[in-house]
């Protein structure tokens, strides 16, 4: 093994010598030839660390097991509600948290088609864009207030989801993925080119007219904006709470959806389409409803984004965003609601974490994403928090019977 690395190092050094020069080529060769030694150290370290780590993990698990899950959830909710009030002068953190919550909404929406119904969708950003632009245009040109815009944005996305879904849902697997990829690009180009409506590459501002929601915007009389009487430097704090409420409602809705009749039909569809047909599931309708419902969530997330950001640029809604949301669902665990939330939070936090703590690695963000995904697929293909509900449920029921 070490001889192979040594040979590789010599070969690499010889290869790069004309380009890099003697010193750099030697350095490179040295680094490569040291890999076996480094691996040895790493292995030894891992072996030494494994026992204490396991112990720590077990202790953590035991500790969290002692607190009933209901308190854990309420504790988390209380933390998410109270913490921002103390951070209310920190625009950065509030914005980060709000963006994360919007991404959670998006990931939850994609989870309907991808996780529950097993349909591969690659152009999800299109629906997000439609929701966002629908809201921006309506608020700018017709002074539609936020709640009306929310309904309209969701409806617009749903309509496009339905219309596009109608012909394309005859396709299975990869072909559907390609069609949705095309849809994503098409929508983006329409937004870029129809300047009279969307502002094209110049972007599109939005004017959210807010029905209070506890917020008093900046005015001469009261000075800084206030949130339920609290002075807050950030006007966007109420978007944070709005997003938080929407995520909470969505999680409940998803939970109910996955246990509902249509949720069952989606699972059957994912498991075996032909068998689902033979069992009497109206498959076209089931697929179409998954597609449309998932578009509704993207539309709502888009509206929230447009209202909070107050300015839309078409570049945001590119394939990278679709891929990012897809990675969130896959990384967290397809079909698992807490998993998808976790996946979205982790992937949204990585760039911020790098920027704030390791600025020198910031440019390697995509590389780190990629590496993370590869490692996940090798060691934990089912996701960070896989869908074990069913398994646990079955286990508990057998225990109760016995």
């Amino acid at each position, binding site marked *: 093994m070490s001889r192979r690395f040594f040979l590789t190092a010599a070969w690499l050094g010889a290869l790069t010598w004309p380009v890099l020069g003697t010193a750099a080529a030697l350095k490179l060769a040295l680094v490569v030839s040291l890999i076996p030694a480094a691996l040895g150290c790493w292995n030894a370290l891992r072996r030494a660390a494994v026992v204490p780590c396991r112990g720590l993990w077990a202790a953590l698990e035991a500790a969290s097991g002692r607190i009933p899950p209901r308190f854990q959830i309420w504790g988390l909710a209380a933390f998410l509600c109270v913490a921002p009030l103390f951070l209310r002068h920190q625009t950065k953190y509030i914005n980060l948290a709000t963006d994360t919550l919007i991404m959670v909404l998006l990931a939850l929406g994609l989870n309907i088609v991808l996780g529950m119904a097993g349909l591969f969708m690659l152009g999800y950003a299109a629906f997000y864009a439609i929701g966002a632009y629908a809201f921006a245009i309506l608020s700018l040109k017709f002074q539609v207030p936020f709640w009306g815009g929310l309904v309209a944005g969701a409806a617009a996305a749903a309509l496009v989801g339905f219309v596009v879904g109608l012909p394309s849902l005859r396709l299975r697997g990869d072909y559907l993925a390609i069609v949705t990829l095309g849809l994503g690009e098409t929508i983006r180009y329409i937004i870029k080119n129809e300047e009279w409506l969307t502002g094209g590459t110049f972007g599109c501002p939005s004017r959210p007219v807010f029905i209070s929601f506890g917020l008093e915007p900046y005015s001469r009389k009261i000075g800084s904006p206030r949130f339920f009487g609290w002075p807050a430097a950030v006007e966007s704090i109420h978007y944070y709470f709005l997003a938080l409420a929407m995520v909470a409602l969505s999680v409940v809705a998803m939970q109910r959806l996955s246990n509902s009749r249509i949720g069952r*039909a989606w699972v*059957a569809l994912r498991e075996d389409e*032909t*068998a689902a047909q033979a*069992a009497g*599931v109206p498959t076209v309708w089931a697929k179409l409803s998954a597609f449309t419902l998932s578009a509704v969530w993207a539309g709502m997330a888009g509206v929230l984004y447009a209202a909070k950001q107050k300015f839309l640029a078409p570049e945001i809604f590119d394939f990278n965003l679709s891929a990012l949301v897809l990675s969130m669902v896959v990384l967290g665990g397809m079909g698992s609601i807490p998993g998808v939330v976790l996946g979205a939070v982790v992937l949204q936090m990585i760039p911020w974490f790098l920027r704030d703590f390791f600025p020198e690695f910031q440019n390697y963000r995509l590389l780190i994403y990629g590496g993370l995904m590869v490692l996940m697929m090798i060691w934990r293909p089912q996701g960070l928090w896989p869908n074990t509900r069913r398994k646990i449920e079955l286990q508990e*029921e057998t225990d109760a*019977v016995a």
Partner: protein
Amino acid sequence: MLDLSGVHSAYGPIEVLKDVTLAVREGEIVALIGANGAGKTTTLMAVSAIHKIKAGEILFNGRSIADAAPHEIVRLGISQVPEGRRIFPRMSVEENLEMGAYARNSDLEIRKDLEHVFQLFPILKERRRQLGGTLSGGEQQMLAIGRALMARPKLLLLDEPSLGLAPKIVSQIFSVIKNLNAEGVTILLVEQNAFAALKLAHRAYVLETGRVVLSGEAAGLLTNPQVRKSYLGIN
């Protein structure tokens, strides 16, 4: 009850059913036998409307069903046990059975039928919480039949229920089929195992490269020299 006349069906340019005419009368067990690729499974898929036909007519109780959607067929009272069982592997036994009743609404009736299926196959009751994919082949076949029965069919389409099962299980499943028929379920059975199928059925059709080449009383076909030579391997 079920009438197929002049049914043509194709996968792309390849014609599979070239002219299938057959009839199933209420209360019968009708067997459809033939070699691999003769079009047996395609015939059932055509009746279930999962694979649409190119020409011909399919009537169920005098009503044309060739243009209906698969779930409407189930609602009309035709359910299929597909080839290779095709149960939902990551759903529990009970959930699999509930999926079979997807087209129905009355919870009370569904519960009753669930108990009935458990009566027919007691092993499924024992394993009701287990995931479908963890069952043995025979149990999966029972589950597939149970799932089809949960739609409370008037006509049950069975595709190769003996496929890959031990002889003992096969005879158990065949006796359940016989009992179901005695309870009033009409059955169209597709089988490779021609001998067992002909012994069970009232009438049978022999399919060869997309055409019905022989038909008649099952007992008569059992003694037909052509059938004995080609499908039973007896001279």
